[in-house]
């Protein structure tokens, strides 16, 4: 089969897709060794489909990165069909759960590409990607992400969560304010493992020439969101509730920076015609609460954060000389010498730092990956300051502080444009 020879989809997966046929709703599940959670997640998804979309043709597509713990079997084992009528006697129609193992090491990019390809082949009207790493997928998450697409004509639904004020700091201190400032859209979780999208957006992104220039790797979800923004698609947010993550070994800052900041920086050049002309920002329609900040006391090792900042500034000085302007670097050197009690990484300095990193990334002043890695100690310094400033803050205060940082990003956007165009 020529199609199969040219396709990154396996023949077996194509055969499964042929058997499924056209669907209204597609649920994508990227997995890799998720046997502990996948069973309950699929059951929750099934329950939601049967309750909220009982008449729609639906399929669960598992794109697996080579699990050795039986994850795919757990997904396919819960199909609702007429071979096992006892599986759900109240289901109006067949609900397929199919699985494919893609021919690559575990990668959210390959998984998403597989899901998008399946969505296009099945002509799915509304799709959702759910993360098996969410330890507490609640009933209704699925419908909250799908309903705005299936019923209200939106093309992308990003989630908002109830988070602890010190959780998701990379989002609140960098990703959210920078995306907002550059693209003019206030999407709280532009990079999320859970999101809903229309078939037409999925097809458009699948057809973009992004899969061979790094999108196969991390951060493709963010690129997907940015593609929806730049493509003029209808976007909304849906509040899902509190989210617990499965703790994974090795989940540290640098990979997270690569997935988020690296992905964002990598598209800025192509998107320059769009974001360079945007001023200010606009909210997007949101279902449910905008977000929810949880305040339970948690222990944060601020001393360690500050030490890592100071050490990083000292050890990476030569790297920073290539990336940062002399004034920004001088200010960083100054605050690195401050005692813990006096240490602050002010919002304006943080925004200038990030923008200078973005410009340096564009110009590839050094290896782009080294640029991303070099941001890690500085981010820790910013986290120290955020934690300090919000240690006893109320939920409203925390939100106000995040809003202040966002405005700082917006106000300093001309500085980014200036840096972007400068020769150095």
């Amino acid at each position, binding site marked *: 089969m020529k199609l199969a020879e040219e396709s990154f989809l396996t023949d077996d997966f194509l055969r499964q897709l042929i*058997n499924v046929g056209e669907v209204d709703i597609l649920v994508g599940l990227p997995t890799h060794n998720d046997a502990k959670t996948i069973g309950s997640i699929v059951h929750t998804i099934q329950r939601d489909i049967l309750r909220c979309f009982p008449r729609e043709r639906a399929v669960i597509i598992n794109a697996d990165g080579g699990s050795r713990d039986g994850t795919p079997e757990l997904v396919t084992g819960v199909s609702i069909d*007429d071979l096992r009528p006892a599986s759900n006697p109240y289901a109006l129609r067949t609900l397929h759960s199919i699985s494919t193992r893609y021919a690559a090491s575990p990668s959210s990019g390959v998984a998403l590409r597989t899901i998008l390809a399946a969505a296009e082949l099945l002509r799915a009207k509304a799709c959702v990607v759910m993360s098996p790493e969410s330890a507490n997928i609640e009933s209704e998450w699925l419908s909250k992400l799908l309903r705005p697409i299936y019923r209200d004509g939106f093309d992308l639904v990003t989630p908002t969560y109830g988070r602890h004020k010190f959780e998701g700091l990379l989002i609140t201190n960098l990703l959210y304010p920078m995306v907002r400032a550059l693209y003019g859209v206030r999407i709280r979780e532009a990079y999320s493992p859970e999101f809903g999208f229309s078939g037409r957006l999925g097809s458009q992104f699948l057809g973009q020439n992004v899969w061979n220039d790094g999108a196969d790797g991390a951060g493709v979800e963010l690129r997907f969101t940015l593609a929806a923004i730049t493509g003029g698609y209808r976007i909304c947010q849906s509040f899902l509730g509190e989210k617990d993550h499965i703790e994974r070994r090795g989940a540290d800052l640098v990979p997270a920076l690569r997935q988020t900041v690296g992905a964002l920086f990598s598209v800025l050049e192509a998107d320059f015609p769009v974001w360079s002309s945007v001023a200010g920002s606009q909210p997007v329609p949101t279902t449910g609460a905008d977000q929810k900040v949880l305040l339970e006391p948690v222990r944060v090792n601020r001393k360690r954060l500050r030490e890592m900042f100071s050490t990083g500034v000292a050890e990476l000085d030569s790297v920073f000389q290539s990336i940062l302007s002399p004034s920004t670097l001088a200010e960083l050197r100054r605050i690195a010498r401050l005692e813990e009690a006096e240490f602050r990484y002010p919002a304006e300095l943080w925004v200038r730092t990030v923008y200078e990193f973005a410009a340096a990334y564009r110009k590839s002043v050094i290896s782009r990956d080294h640029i991303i890695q070099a941001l890690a100690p500085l981010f820790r310094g910013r986290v120290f300051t955020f934690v300090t400033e919000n240690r006893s803050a109320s939920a409203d205060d925390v939100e106000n502080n995040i809003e202040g940082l966002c405005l700082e990003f917006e106000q300093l956007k001309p500085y980014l444009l200036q840096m972007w165009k400068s020769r150095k």
Partner: protein
Amino acid sequence: MPLNRDVLWYKDAIIYQVHVRTFHDSNGDGIGDFQGLEGKLDYLQELGISAIWLMPFFPSPLRDDGYDISDYVSVHSSYGTLEDFRKFLGAAHARGIRVIIEMVLNHTSDQHPWFQESRSSRDNPRRDWYVWSDTNTRYKDARVIFLDTETSNWAWDPISKSYYWHRFFSHQPDLNYDNPAVREQMWNVMKFWLEMGVDAFRLDAVPYLVEREGTNCENLPETHGVLKELRRKLDEQFPGRMLLAEANQWPADLRPYFGDGDEFHMAFHFPLMPRMFMGVKLEDRKPITEILQQTPEIPPLCQWSLFLRNHDELTLEMVTDMERDYMYDTYAGTKTMRLNLGIRRRLAPLLDNDRRRIELMNGMLMSLPGTPIIYYGDEIGMGDNINLGDRNGVRTPMQWSGGRNGGFSTVDPERLYAPLIEDPVYGYPAVNVLRQTETGHSLLHWMRRMITVRRSTAVFGRGSIEFLYPASHRILAYVRRLGSEAVLVVNNLSSTAQAVELDLRRYKGNILIEMSGKNMFPRVSDLPYLLTMGPYQFYWFWLRRI
């Protein structure tokens, strides 16, 4: 053509359901009659059917289309005489067509002399032929069936100043089957018709014959006792005759009506019918295969009777609430199409007059296990008139031609028992027997061909069924087997073309011969057997080892 003497004739039968009133008017009074029906027997013989099921033709005030009988051993004067019926019966038999008549055991009309006597005084000898009570609180666990018109199963009788029991309309009092005299009398009624030569009875509303406190008064052991007694007498005195049960129940509840082969020969499979419609609309075989999986085995001499549409509404009693909502939304968009718990529409309008879907549904009807029943007019795709009350919209005159009154009657149109369908799509000028007879690719010709194919083998009427479950849920595939004969049936329930791979390894070495055109398809091997199916297409293949 003489009658087939096989006592299992009902297993191979194709039954045609018709009300004498609707078929043909021979005397120009606007109402169909037995002479008219007799005059159309050649048409039915050519169609290929082997049995006619006649709806009630007995004297009746006709407040429930004849199911309110006021005399069990005569013919309503509008339809002719007893002699006319006898002649019709003989003419049908001469063409190899058996005749099934209705027997409404559960109740009579309130105009029946038995009820008139019963209500006349509390000490009348026939007082105990019906179910009377001083209160309306007995048997409170019994549901009300005609929800749109009745609020209780008890009705007050102002003459005898007490309540009488009725499971259907209040003008249809239930007979009291605890009374041996009633049981004896009803057997005498059946014997009257059997002695005349009637081949079978469709026994109406059988689950409700007996009432018991603390129960829902349906499917009671005492009711089965009454029915077994009738069957025993039938077998003893009239072997080869048949009883068909009308019991709108779940398959498991229906199973006891077959007993150990000593109660009914046949019973309608009510839950299957709506699920066939559902399967085609959902483009998913699940509703069909699930209900058939839940259908228990029946004794070897027994048979299910299958139908797509009949004289009643498309009943949705035997579906879940969610399924009913789906059926209403997809098949009865306006409330006037709904009646009781059902949809009062004919086959063609239900399927948007889509020839492909009409053929697919008939293909399934004739290939699933059971004896198919064709409702009059559905063989030419007649429409309905939802502006007529109750179920009268699906009981309009048969459309024979594009001429006066559709060839049904010579009377002035305003004197017809019911107006003909006249809309541009389904009206008699467009849809009629004459035009379709003259058109080689008409639905009528297609039905004749399929009936011929169906009757060319006993495997459909008597064979086992084995579902194949291909991975595509849009494909309903099964193998019917009888002895060494095997037929593969593949139905595409989808509105779009489908590729399907069938696991036929069990039949490795067989070649497939399409039964309609007799063309060969490739031999079965160890590999999945690939078929491509057009929208709503179906195939019947002989599996032949040559």
